[in-house]
């Protein structure tokens, strides 16, 4: 069974190579379905691995097969190897599952694109990298996957590269992720210095055994804080947290399936996964969790407010994703690792559903993305509309949809960490139900405002009327909708015997997982509160947006600009430093260094007149004189040697 683990990433890798080299000889359909089927096979293998783990005792649920040694120097020895434990098994299941659906959807969505084949080449490479990230048995191989998904994200965001905005957005995503990677790398270096290894089994094994034996901890508190926070910088880049979230909104320039797969369901959750992975290290630190929770809560709130003022159907979803990722980090920082992973999975379902639904709308309106130019589409696109509403209710956190259970768990943990964090999370919950409600009403209800869009865009042939998308696109919507409703079953929070996800993941997190105990009816009150917040948000959205498409007082410009953080980045870093870059060598190279050299040259020239020849351009003769000089020295030495 252990060897089979490597087949999971190998499948999409095979798809990448086949379509890269032979794709242009294959019919389009074959390219698309081959890419989809191979990811599907990965899902099936992941499923068998899950059942294999299930058959083992909970202590034995950690397989770490090695493939080969990547490099080894000094004390450092890095192996290409996999680490399959309950956490990574859950991750590969939902990654391959969601990826299969989105691959299938893309066959329909990208049908008219001239670079259809290239798209699937990138998409398969992305899934491969993501699986490497998740399945790695050490920080360096995980970094290979980590940077790999970043590169694929760059290629896919700038997929329509002839648009300057798309090309710039891809570049921006990669560069800001690199700032995060700078933190990831320093975190690794420090961990290696302290732990003398970067292998999960070794690092976490040593932490566990030193904790069991008492005495000197394997990693001291301050060291753990530094390592955890440096890795968190990486996580904040990848998972778009303050202040590194600016790239994710621009990333919407990519094709919508890419937004769904990479920028909602999978890649952006990699940071959350990394933090869950290093839970034992965060646990050793007294402050790292608090910092992570504060950044998470702040991001959740800021992004949710920004989402309320967007008019681009995908930008609402982009800010929403940033906000939901903030919730996940709030969970991580509060020690509720299971809740964070739970939210990650349910969010993957309903956010992928929202993006694919948005894609379905964009597709049928001839690439229109402005929700002010939509409206009344429910009757024309019933499947898209109905599934979109399910996703709305799910993200809003209304029972019995999955979002209620997962977000509820995060808020409970936040409350036990600090009521202030809980309050920020609660306000965000109201905002979430509200901004998604606004989008639902503006897109699917009210008056039809899409006529103009349809006449303006003549890109995809003549669309006389918006239409429901083909089956290859709606079937994934239906499957994701069912998953969004039912995924809550994983962890109902009613009794410990039905908390499957908690029971499954507890051996991974152990003592790091916060143990929540609430006195009296606190837990019930908080849960009822969750329902009230959701209803409140839905109510406000209905009041404000069900009848009208214009409500300027609710669309604040400052929020529309995402709190001006992007602007700040642009003016300070991008423009400021490019000016510096252009000026720098003029000054340092030409004036200072060459100036000094020329100055001393002139000095010598003035003294001896010997360099005048060079400056007046007798280059070759000068070169010859020097060559002659070398020969002369050689000759002198040789004669002295008496040969």
């Amino acid at each position, binding site marked *: 069974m252990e060897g089979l683990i490597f087949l999971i990433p190998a499948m999409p890798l095979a798809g990448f190579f086949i379509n890269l080299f032979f794709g242009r000889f294959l019919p389009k359909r074959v390219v698309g379905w081959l890419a989809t089927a191979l990811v599907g096979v990965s899902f099936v293998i992941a499923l068998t691995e899950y059942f294999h783990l299930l058959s083992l005792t909970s202590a034995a649920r950690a397989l770490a097969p090695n493939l080969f040694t990547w490099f080894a120097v000094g*004390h450092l020895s890095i192996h290409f190897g996999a680490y399959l434990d309950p956490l990574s098994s859950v991750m590969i299941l939902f990654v391959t599952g969601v990826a299969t659906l989105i691959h299938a959807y893309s066959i329909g969505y990208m049908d008219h694109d001239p670079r259809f084949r290239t798209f699937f080449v990138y998409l398969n490479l992305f899934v491969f990298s993501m699986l490497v990230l998740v399945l790695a048995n050490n920080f360096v191989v995980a970094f290979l996957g980590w940077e790999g998904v970043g590169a694929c994200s760059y290629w896919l965001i700038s997929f329509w590269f002839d648009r300057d905005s798309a090309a710039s957005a891809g570049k921006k995503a990669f560069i800001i992720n690199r700032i995060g990677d700078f933190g990831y790398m320093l975190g*690794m*270096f420090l961990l290696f210095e302290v732990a003398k290894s970067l292998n999960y089994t070794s690092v976490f094994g040593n932490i566990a055994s030193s904790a069991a034996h008492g005495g000197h901890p394997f990693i001291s508190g301050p060291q753990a804080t530094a390592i955890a926070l440096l890795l968190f910088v990486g996580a904040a880049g990848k998972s778009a947290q303050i202040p590194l979230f600016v790239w994710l909104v621009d990333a919407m320039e990519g094709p919508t399936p890419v937004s769904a797969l990479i920028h909602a369901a999978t890649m952006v959750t990699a940071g959350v996964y990394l933090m869950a992975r290093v839970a034992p290290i965060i646990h050793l630190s007294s402050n790292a969790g608090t910092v992570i929770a504060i950044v998470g809560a702040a991001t959740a709130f800021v992004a949710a407010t920004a989402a309320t003022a967007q008019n681009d159907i995908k930008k609402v979803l982009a800010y929403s994703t940033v906000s939901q990722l903030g919730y996940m980090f709030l969970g991580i920082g509060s020690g509720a690792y299971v809740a964070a992973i739970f939210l990650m999975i349910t969010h993957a379902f309903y956010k992928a559903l929202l993006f694919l639904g948005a894609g379905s709308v964009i597709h049928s309106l001839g690439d229109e993305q402005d929700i002010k130019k939509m409206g009344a589409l429910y009757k024309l696109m019933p499947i898209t509309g109905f599934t979109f509403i399910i996703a709305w209710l799910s993200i809003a956190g209304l029972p019995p949809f999955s979002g209620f259970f997962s977000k509820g768990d995060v808020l409970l943990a936040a409350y036990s960490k600090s009521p202030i964090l809980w309050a920020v999370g609660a306000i965000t919950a109201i905002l979430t139900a509200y901004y998604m409600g606004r989008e639902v009403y503006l897109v699917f209800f009210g008056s039809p405002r899409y006529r103009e869009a349809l006449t303006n865009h003549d890109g995809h042939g003549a669309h006389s009327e918006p239409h429901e998308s083909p089956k290859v696109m709606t079937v994934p919507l239906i499957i994701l909708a069912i998953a969004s409703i039912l995924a809550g079953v994983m962890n109902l929070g009613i009794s410990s015997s039905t908390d499957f996800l908690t029971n499954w993941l507890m051996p991974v997190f152990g003592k790091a997982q916060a143990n929540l105990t609430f006195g009296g009816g606190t837990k019930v009150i908080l849960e009822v509160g969750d329902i009230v917040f959701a209803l409140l948000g839905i109510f406000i959205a209905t009041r404000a947006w069900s009848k009208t498409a214009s409500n300027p007082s609710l669309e604040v410009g400052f929020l529309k600009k995402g709190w001006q953080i992007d602007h700040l980045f642009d003016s300070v870093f991008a423009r400021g430093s490019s000016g510096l870059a252009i000026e720098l060598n003029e000054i340092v*190279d030409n004036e200072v260094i060459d100036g000094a050299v020329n100055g001393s040259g002139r000095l010598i020239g003035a003294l001896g007149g010997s360099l005048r020849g060079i400056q007046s351009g007798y280059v070759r003769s000068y070169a010859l004189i020097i060559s002659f000089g070398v020969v002369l020295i050689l000759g002198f030495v040789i004669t002295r040697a008496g040969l």
Partner: protein
Amino acid sequence: MSNVLEVLVILPAVGALLIALLPKEVRGRLVVPITGAISIAEAILAIVLAVNFKAGVASYQYVSSYSWISSFGISWKLGVDGISIFLVLLTALIFPIAYIGAKERANAQSFAAWMLLLEAACMGSFMSLDLFAFFVTFELTLIPTYFLIGSWGYEKSGAAAIKFFIYTFLGSALLLVGMLALVFIHSAQTGVTTFDIAALAKTSLSSGTEKWLFLAFTAAFAVKAPIFPFHTWSPDAYRQAPTSGVIVLAAIMAKLGTYGILRFDFTLFPHAVVSFGPLLLTLAVIGIIYGGIVAAGERDIKRMLAYSSLSHMGFIILGFFALSREGVAGGVLQMINHGIYTAALFLLVGFLFAATGAIDMDRLGGLQSKAPVMAGIFTLFVMASIGLPGLSGFVGEFLILIGSFSTHRWWAVVAAFGVVISAVYMLWSYQRIFHGKPSEPDLIPESRPIEIKKGQILVLAPLIVIVVALGLYPRPILDRITPSVNALISHVNAANVSPNAIGVIVQKGKG
């Protein structure tokens, strides 16, 4: 196989002579086949040597030694260890690629002769175990390079060639003085005049003398690499040199500088290496950051790559002076990696110039739609150069940074930020060239194909294979590099533990 290294030097040298003497009637037909055959034969021989090179051994292999000028103790002594074997291999691989890929047509005969002579000189420099022989071959690289830049270069190549010559020659003058001084001191101490590196390593030097000698040697190598602030010749030279010339300059001759530091400074002046460590580390880090920032502002592709090289050379020097096993081994590996992807990038720029006539990014743009394959290959090497894991570039950079982090933390932290800057200038340049829409629609006529040709892909193919292979499986190389690196570090450490007895010499490092 005892004289096999001589063949590596003599074959191209004789080839150069042969080409130069070719009679007029047959020149047109024979120059290219002969040069190609010689450089490929050289590459095959180097591959055989590298494959048969014993792993896990620190000492020199394939050593051969002839007395040359016996009264001065000058000998012709060649040998390779784990550090130099791959530089020899790199040289042998890059020369045919540069020669065949660049296809210089004007005055083909002298071009081929200079290229072969340059190859012989580079080979000699990387293999000489005698300081005098090293100096001669090291200097000999200057003349062919000067003519390659000056006669086959771009519009302002004359001035660039002089600048290159003056800077490197001034450095060499210091090297010559330092070398002679060391030999005289050794001679005075032992009564034996010798240029043998192993023997000279045993010279007992006063701290002040060692420092001066270190500076003299290092100046020559710092210009060649280049290390900040000795780099100002390189953007001009790289910009004006013809494609083949710039490939050799950046991929191979830059390594003469870094190799010189490791081979001679570390062996001969182990105390000074430690005491000047912070200075060199600081210059390295300035080079990384400064080179990256300036590269981001350059609109000329070749000048951008020149400053990028300055930045990469900084990483290599950082690894060396980190004086940890990971750092030095990473630095050596990075010399190879940098050679591979720099050669590929400059070659691609050459192809691009041949197809479009532009080298200024502002005049290009939108090329990816007309030349997707070229764009794909370009991306691959861009990613390798910015250290994407899985491609060559990452492992070296990673080893350098992790190796310097524990010994010289703050230098490593600042240097690590270089990975952000490298993404900035590389992706920015890529966008300007390949993304968006053409900025000068009239630059390329609709009818002219600019896509890379099959033959060009074939020339690049070995580099593509290596860049992936080294990224995923650098072990065969690292296993051969590390014993020699470990021995060198032990030598430096031993010298610094007991200042008066420089005991362990490189050749006798533990095996």
